[in-house]
């Protein structure tokens, strides 16, 4: 495939806009605006219009917070791992994935603010020296969240932005007028000198190494919001890895769905091949097994310990009021991916999307089932309670899926959703067939043309 063809195909969504795009964006925008009104009404009327009340103070909002932070693991973490191992098939996938991280983190980070009765005082959560000397408590998991999420968000935005610079330069070169001016600014004077390429690749390597432990830490810290609290079935050391595994699991599912939608609607069939879905489908299968392993561990230890308050929560989810949700979760997160991704003929694009949709539902339920049954059934009967989500919570939580879709579509409209330069770099080499190893220090695995008769000594 020629470079011009790659440019034409991948820049088409930026330069051509159909009426369907405007219609779709308008519909999505209207839904998000409705959710905004719902949230404003909550701020105006107070938390009384939600189902959140003593003893269940964490409901749909904190469930969605944990869920979206988990989805954010789709991108940067997966992309960083694939970059480090230099997986060739990553090239069309990385940017699709990295974008999910940034938007999922933004949406997830909104929920602590949505969850505040007086959101205009959100800055009280930030570590700043206040005049009243009430400094944030650095030993609180909520402050850890602040640092972990913001570090991950900053790192992920930069990890997404840096490899976009050469693509911005391509758009700059192909556009005119205001669009040219905007992309000229975004391209930061990129020319594609060999020095610039080396620096960019070095930076991406370092960022990939740095971002992996940060990504793992983020969901571990989110798990600490629970495991640091003396609540039945929360105070367990397995929550850190359990949350991280679940996050990667739901992240891969989110990525598969996003890729399938992009492939269909942006006509990217020549770039996102079935093999990309099959490879990610295998990862989904591995994560389904890992998730099953963690659930088994968590359940077995609780069951064997037979502590009365923990067993009360255990049975609520296994065979009492929350049992339908629990077993739906098990089917969605374990049985469905195992069948669809484990049996080869089902590991198609459609199979991957069905399994991923199941995992998304299952992982949201998992977060809900960690939070609500435990909070509604603590140690003593005076603290037992029921949570019934109200319309405002359902609208706000549900609309975040629409917001994610809207942000993703708008992003794909202004930035090539597949990294053009990485795709070109991964294409068939231009060098001739006969090649010899380079004798440049540090480049023993590189090759150069054999025709070096003219090479400078």
């Amino acid at each position, binding site marked *: 495939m020629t*470079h011009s063809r790659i*440019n034409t195909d991948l820049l088409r969504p930026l330069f051509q806009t159909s009426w369907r795009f405007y219609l779709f964006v308008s519909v999505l925008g209207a839904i998000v605006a409705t959710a905004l009104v719902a949230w404003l009404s909550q701020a105006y009327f107070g938390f009384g219009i939600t189902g959140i009340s003593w003893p269940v103070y964490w409901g749909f909002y904190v469930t969605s917070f944990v869920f979206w932070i988990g989805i954010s693991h789709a991108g940067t973490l997966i992309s960083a791992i694939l970059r480090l191992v230099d997986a060739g098939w990553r090239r069309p996938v990385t940017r699709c994935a990295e974008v999910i991280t940034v938007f999922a983190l933004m949406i997830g980070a909104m929920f602590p603010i949505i969850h505040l009765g007086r959101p205009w005082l959100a800055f009280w959560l930030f*570590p700043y*020296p206040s005049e009243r*000397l009430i*400094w*944030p*408590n*650095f*030993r609180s998991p909520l*402050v*850890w969240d602040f*640092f*972990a999420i913001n*570090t991950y968000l900053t*790192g992920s935005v*930069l990890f997404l932005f840096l490899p976009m610079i*050469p693509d911005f*330069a391509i758009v700059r*070169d*192909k556009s005119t007028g205001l669009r040219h001016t905007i992309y000229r600014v975004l391209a*930061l*004077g990129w*020319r*594609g*000198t*060999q*020095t*610039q*390429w*080396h*620096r960019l*690749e*070095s*930076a991406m390597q*370092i*960022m990939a190494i*740095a*971002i992996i432990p*940060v990504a793992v*830490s983020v969901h571990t*810290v989110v798990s600490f919001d629970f495991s640091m609290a003396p609540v039945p079935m929360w105070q367990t050391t397995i929550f850190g890895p359990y949350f991280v595994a679940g996050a990667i699991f739901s992240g891969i599912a989110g990525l598969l769905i996003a890729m399938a939608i992009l492939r269909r609607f942006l006509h990217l069939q020549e770039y996102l091949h079935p093999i990309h879905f099959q490879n990610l489908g295998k990862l989904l299968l591995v994560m389904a097994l890992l998730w099953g392993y963690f659930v088994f561990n968590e359940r077995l230890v609780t069951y064997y310990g037979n502590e009365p308050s923990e067993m009360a929560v255990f049975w609520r989810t296994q065979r009492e009021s929350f049992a339908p949700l629990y077993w739906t979760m098990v089917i969605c997160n374990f049985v469905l991916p195992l069948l669809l991704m484990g049996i080869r003929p089902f590991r198609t694009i459609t199979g991957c999307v069905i399994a991923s949709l199941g995992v998304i539902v299952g992982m949201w339920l998992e977060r809900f089932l960690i939070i609500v049954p435990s909070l509604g059934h603590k140690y003593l009967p005076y603290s037992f309670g029921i949570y019934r989500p109200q319309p405002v919570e359902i609208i706000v939580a549900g609309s975040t899926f629409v917001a994610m879709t809207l942000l993703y579509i708008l992003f794909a409209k202004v930035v090539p959703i597949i990294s053009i*330069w*990485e795709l*070109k*770099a991964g294409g068939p080499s*231009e*060098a*001739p067939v006969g*090649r010899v190893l380079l004798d*440049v220090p*540090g*480049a023993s695995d*590189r090759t*150069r*043309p054999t*025709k*070096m008769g*003219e090479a*400078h000594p």
Partner: protein
Amino acid sequence: MKAIYGLYDDGQAAQQAVNRLRSAGIADGEIVVMSSHPMEDYEFGQKDKKTWMWWMACGGGLLGMATAFGLAWLTETSWPIDVGGLPTFAWWPNLIIIFELTMLGAILGTVITLVVSARLGRRSDFYDPQVSDGKILVGIASPGDAIVREIEAALGAQSGAQVKTI
């Protein structure tokens, strides 16, 4: 004259142009090669690989670590709150903040080094939009009048090369 450059269809032709420029007495540091993707398969793509970026990332990490330590120590000792009997300055929970800001420092150190060392955001001497279409540019910025003809000859020796002067 701002620059002379040639545009080539493939890496091999660009490599030959680079070699001819060297034979014409042009120093390696003066030869600029631009492409729409990394060209590490070629010898010219191996130039200027050395970078301080790793050290700058480590430096940024150390700075982040020191900032986190200072922030945690200052805030906790300024308003000592009893949290479950933990010491006023408790290492275990503070390690989380220290870790996060260390990594943030390393990331920011890397990005700042990239911006400075790759000369991002600065006005460029010359460029040709055909690079975006896959052409490989080999050129010299501000060549001396005495060697212009030699450079033009070196760049144009390859069939199919487009030589431009700006």
